[in-house]
């Protein structure tokens, strides 16, 4: 067998469909001001923010092994950077949304320096303390109006149509950067190192993976995505206060979405965020009872299906939306090998069975289309 011309299959039929649907959604969102009601536009903006922060938390916990309960720090930083730059400094508020991502990433660096020596629950508590410190600090800075918060007065210069267009465009950009970015990242060689680091940090380090640098990069990327989501969310709200921006409830949303949706898979946080969003819409009226039900659901999933809803679904039908694996196939043997993989055991093989909480890296060859990339071994 020659290794100079080996095909790498990277897509399945379901993933091609999912990719097409994703492109359609990301393209359709900015057109919503022309055909959707204001209420639905607000739904989409909020849902985009939820998916983004859940996806970022999934990167942290599911791939870098960093369980943070202080993600609200970056929501608040993103929101406040938007309000300060747009209100107090006269920047264009829409352009400031991506800028908030950089600001949150910059704030995440000193936080990481403080927290990097902590592991597991100590790290989690440390992130929460960091977020609380930021909340208290913000509440005592008169430049940002202290505990009273700020209103985004600058938005008054735009018509409702312009605001809706800007917000929907930012929502698309947010989804593209957080979900699309995670997809591209995890399919790269960096993603391979990231997965190795998640599964076996000691082995990864002894194979040349710079574990500390990887963790810092993921921490910064997650902060950037979360910060951008915070900026977008509070731009839509037109008002921010320290108690709202740095509310620990943001972290609860992340944890719920990822734990229930499925940790360590790109599809999981999307499902979890959708579930949370619609549950809030339809059952939010029940107040505390509804919150207890969400908590119980998280507990039940953690105990009986650590891979989340996505893992359960995958056991029924192996249709990945965003596969991040590669399957190496020799062109000349492709037909034969495909036949081999269609055999009973492989066809029955669902990744949920094999991988549990970590999800899968296997793609059933029976559902794979030939790839176009050549992998030079």
């Amino acid at each position, binding site marked *: *067998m020659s*290794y100079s011309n080996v095909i790498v299959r990277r897509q399945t039929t379901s993933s091609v469909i999912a990719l097409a649907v994703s492109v359609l959604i990301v393209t359709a969102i900015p057109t919503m001001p022309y055909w959707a009601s204001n209420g639905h536009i607000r739904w989409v903006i909020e849902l985009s923010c939820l998916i983004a922060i859940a996806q970022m938390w999934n990167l942290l916990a599911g791939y870098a092994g960093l369980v943070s309960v202080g993600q609200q720090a970056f929501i608040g930083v993103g929101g406040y950077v938007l309000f300060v730059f747009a209100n107090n400094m006269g920047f264009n508020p829409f352009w400031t949304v991506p800028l908030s991502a950089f600001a949150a990433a910059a704030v995440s660096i000193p936080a990481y320096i403080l927290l990097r020596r902590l592991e597991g629950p100590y790290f989690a508590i440390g992130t929460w303390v960091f977020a609380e410190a930021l909340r208290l600090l913000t509440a005592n800075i008169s430049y940002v109006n202290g505990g009273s918060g700020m209103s985004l007065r600058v938005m008054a210069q735009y018509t409702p149509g312009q605001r809706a267009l800007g917000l929907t465009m930012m929502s698309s950009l947010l989804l593209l950067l957080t979900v699309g970015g995670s997809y591209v990242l995890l399919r790269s*060689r960096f993603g*391979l*190192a990231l*997965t*190795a680091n998640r*599964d*076996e940090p*000691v*082995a*990864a*380090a*002894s*194979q*040349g*993976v*710079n*574990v*500390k640098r990887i963790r810092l990069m993921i921490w910064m990327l997650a902060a950037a995505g979360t910060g951008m989501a915070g900026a977008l969310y509070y731009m839509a709200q037109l008002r921010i206060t320290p108690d709202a921006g740095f509310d620990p409830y943001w972290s609860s949303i992340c944890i719920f979405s990822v734990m229930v949706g499925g940790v360590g898979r790109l599809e999981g946080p999307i499902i979890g965020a959708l579930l949370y969003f619609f549950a809030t819409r339809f059952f939010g009226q029940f107040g505390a009872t509804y919150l207890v039900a969400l908590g119980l659901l998280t507990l039940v999933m953690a105990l009986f299906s650590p891979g989340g809803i996505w893992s359960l679904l995958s056991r029924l039908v192996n249709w990945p939306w965003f596969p991040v*694996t*590669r*399957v*190496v*196939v020799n062109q000349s043997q492709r037909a034969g*090998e495909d036949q081999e*993989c269609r055999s009973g055991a492989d066809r029955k093989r669902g990744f949920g069975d*094999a*991988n549990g909480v*970590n*999800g*899968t*890296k*296997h793609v059933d*060859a029976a559902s794979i289309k030939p790839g176009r990339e050549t992998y030079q*071994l």
Partner: protein
Amino acid sequence: MRAILKVRNLCAAYGDFQALFNVEFEIAAGEVVALIGANGAGKSTLLKAVTGLISPSAGEIAFAGESTSRTPAHALVRKGLAMVPEGRRLFRGMTVEDNLRVCLDRSRTDVEQALRWTIPRIHELFPVLKERRRELVERLSGGQQQMVAVGRALLAQPRLLLCDEISLGLAPKVVKEIYQKLPEIRAGGTSIVIVEQDVSLAKSSSDRLYCLLEGRVTLSGPSCEIGLEAISRAYFGAHS
């Protein structure tokens, strides 16, 4: 022969528990050295200190003439020091091919093309990995998983390969099959350290051996010159 690794007066501790006491250890280029000792003797700690996975509390480690006492693990891999960790520690959820690829970009670049370990060369060394390259590693047998672990380490293009109990939990036939590959690996100029519980296997597979007991070197010398009785005394601490 030129020493590839020199360890002088090495001490290492886990909190208050000192695991290594003034260990002296040396490996020449192209040599196979066995490290034997009972459980808890400090063999794995010595390997972890050498590979930068733990920081020594005292002493000096020099790899290829350069002090590496404080060099992190990932940087040592680029210098040519790779390890097959105890228990294999493969990346579950990845295919055989992906497990091997993790190391590809992080290896030394100063190795001549002809001497480089490539995935096809790993497949030649362990043909079964070629057949099963698309499968998840957890579906492989223990022996095949160990082959992946050895192959993965070789793709770092090591000058020194540290193998931590590669025979652990494997059938004798599989152990023999893996050990038979050591001369082929060594032929490329790679020095090898094997940590082994099976004393006879360690003795027959190595040029020299070191025996550790409670964190101290109790015996060292050419494997062919050391008798089993001397090893037994050093291994169990029956000082006479």
